[in-house]
């Protein structure tokens, strides 16, 4: 962990430890009219190794996005010039498939549905933690790679852990580990993002399709059970807790 003295570094330190190589040569477009949020994003993402460009107007955003050179677009909803959702719709209508993450103060469940309907790939509410944002940014950037390289994967492996997606069988070091249906989905999600931080809300959204915070460390309990099944009787841990952010499935610590 980095020895940063502020809250921002608690999230950024994830990037600094191992994943910054992946961020090299990734271009992110930030469309945000609030100057302080924009500079916070630019600084944070630049430190994580991304090449960041930013503009404060929906029309400029659409213009830049239509060049098609970005790996990710982070857009606010309430923008001058062109509303964020209208901008996303226009980008999609132009046939540009660059992943879009909407970052908005409109936090109700239905606002999120509107955002995803407009063509966004993810929706994060303000105020957000940088750890949450960077985990989602990484997931979106990597997802487009994965779709491009190998969309038809039937087996995932992380170290000695093997996951057969067709037979829905999990084994570690040759020993089959019996998992429930939901536990399997959870592990598959973690394995698809192996090496990356996956946050609690990402899991709630993707595994359970809930967009509210159920409180009571619900996700931690499920992860705890999965971890016991994956690690009991094996010498090395594989499902790591990233403090202040979430979890990471990886061989190293």
């Amino acid at each position, binding site marked *: 962990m980095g020895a940063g*003295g502020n809250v921002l570094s608690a999230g950024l330190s994830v990037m600094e430890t191992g994943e910054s190589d992946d961020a090299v040569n990734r271009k992110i477009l930030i469309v945000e009219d609030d100057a302080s949020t924009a500079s916070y994003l630019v600084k944070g993402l630049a430190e994580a190794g991304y090449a960041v460009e930013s503009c404060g107007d929906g029309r400029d955003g659409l213009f830049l996005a239509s060049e098609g050179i970005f790996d990710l677009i982070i857009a606010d909803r309430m923008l001058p010039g062109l509303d964020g959702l209208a901008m996303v719709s226009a980008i999609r209508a132009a046939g540009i498939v660059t992943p879009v993450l909407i970052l908005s103060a409109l936090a109700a469940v239905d606002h999120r549905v509107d955002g995803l309907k407009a063509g966004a790939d993810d929706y994060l509410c303000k105020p957000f933690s940088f750890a949450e944002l960077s985990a989602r940014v990484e997931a979106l950037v990597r997802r487009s790679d994965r779709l491009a390289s190998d969309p038809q994967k039937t087996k995932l492996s992380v170290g000695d852990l093997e996951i057969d997606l067709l037979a829905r069988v999990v084994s570690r070091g040759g020993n089959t580990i019996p998992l429930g249906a939901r536990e399997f989905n959870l592990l598959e999600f973690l394995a698809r993002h192996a090496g990356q931080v996956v946050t609690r809300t990402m899991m709630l959204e993707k595994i359970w399709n809930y967009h509210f915070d*159920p409180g*009571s460390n619900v996700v931690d309990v*499920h992860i705890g059970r999965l971890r016991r099944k994956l690690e009991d009787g094996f010498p090395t841990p594989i499902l790591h807790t990233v403090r202040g952010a979430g979890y990471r499935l990886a061989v190293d610590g």
Partner: protein
Amino acid sequence: MRLSITARIALLAIILSLVSNLALIGFVWKQTSADAIDAIRRETTEQSDALRTVWQIGGLPELRAAIREADNPGDVSQVLALLDANGRSLQGMAPDRVTIPLKTTTFRIARLGNDSLWAARETGYALYPIGRNWLLTGRNLDLIAAEERAMERALAFAITLSLALGIFGGLVLARYVGRRLDAIANVIEAAGEGDLSRRVGVVAGGGDAFDRLAARLNVMLGKLEGVMAELRVVTDSLAHDLRSPLARLRTKTEQAVLIADPDAREVALGGLLTETDLVMRMLTMVIEISRSGSVSRDRFIEVSPADLIEEIGELYAPVAEDAGLTFQVAIDDRPMPMALHRELISQAIANLIDNALRHGATGGSVTLRLIERGDGVVIQVEDRGPGIAESDRAQALKRFGRLDSARTTPGAGLGLSLIEAVARLHDGRLELGDNAPGLIARIVLPF
């Protein structure tokens, strides 16, 4: 504005009363006048017919005798005379010399003579030849004129009366309408100044327009009062619940600033993040509560309640078991899929379970149950904790979170406000029951 409306109502009443009276009197007047002339015509015709018959049978002497006999000196309006070929009166009551043309006339109204007595009045008369002479019968219109004058006087009186009655009626009506409107306006005014407890008094069984207006207004005020009360609970609860995490946040920040060791400071900062997330979670919940009143129905999707319950049960089962509780999901019935806001209903159920885990944990078991009843689908969470005494339940529903006055777990009051808001969004309600021992909290969703 209100005054001018009452004035207009009064004016309308006056005009209506005037118009209806005038129409009635005018009709009576016209009818009476026509009848009077008809009567004179009939009488004149009858008399002249009778006298001509007398002349035909008995000749001139008999006719003269009959005229003499019929001449009634007391009846000043009667005209009956025998005229010579030049129109001079030979016998009976008539002008000395008539000015009317001497030709056979069945009935006509005209002035009979030039002298002062006859020129002033019109007469309805009949004129028939009797040999070389003429028989004049008829009746002066004096009486009719008198009747007309009486009618006119009556008419003027009636108009005055109807004006007076109209003004009086209009004033009474205006006062009545004004009073009813004032009753409503006062309540609205009070509501505008913040007193939502006042209601318009509605007469039992009164179904007039004012009563309907008042009844609707009362319903609206009732809803408004409920919403305001709920808002107050949410605001109180929010302020109360925000204080403790913010106070903790402040204390922890102060401590973290003083920590020199980097690792220990990292841990302290992590604690700050947790507290911050808690505050953010509460704020999100407030947003959901405030928005749930205006969620449109097109956000609802067809969901099988049983699937929904199983999913949420599966999410919470390990949490309850880790807390040392027996957690059971009981699907008693599998109702047909119904239109629900999946996300908000799930959150409401999650809050119910969360509440049972917090307050009913001492009882050792929690059950999430789905039942189909006649009036709808019931989703209930049963615990074996201390429960809530029946007398306290109504109060508990109002301010659920306040029962546990010493609670340290934040957000419970908000959570229950959210459940209520979600139930109401689905036209349903939140109920509390006795699990003997323990509490049953149920969301009832009508079909």
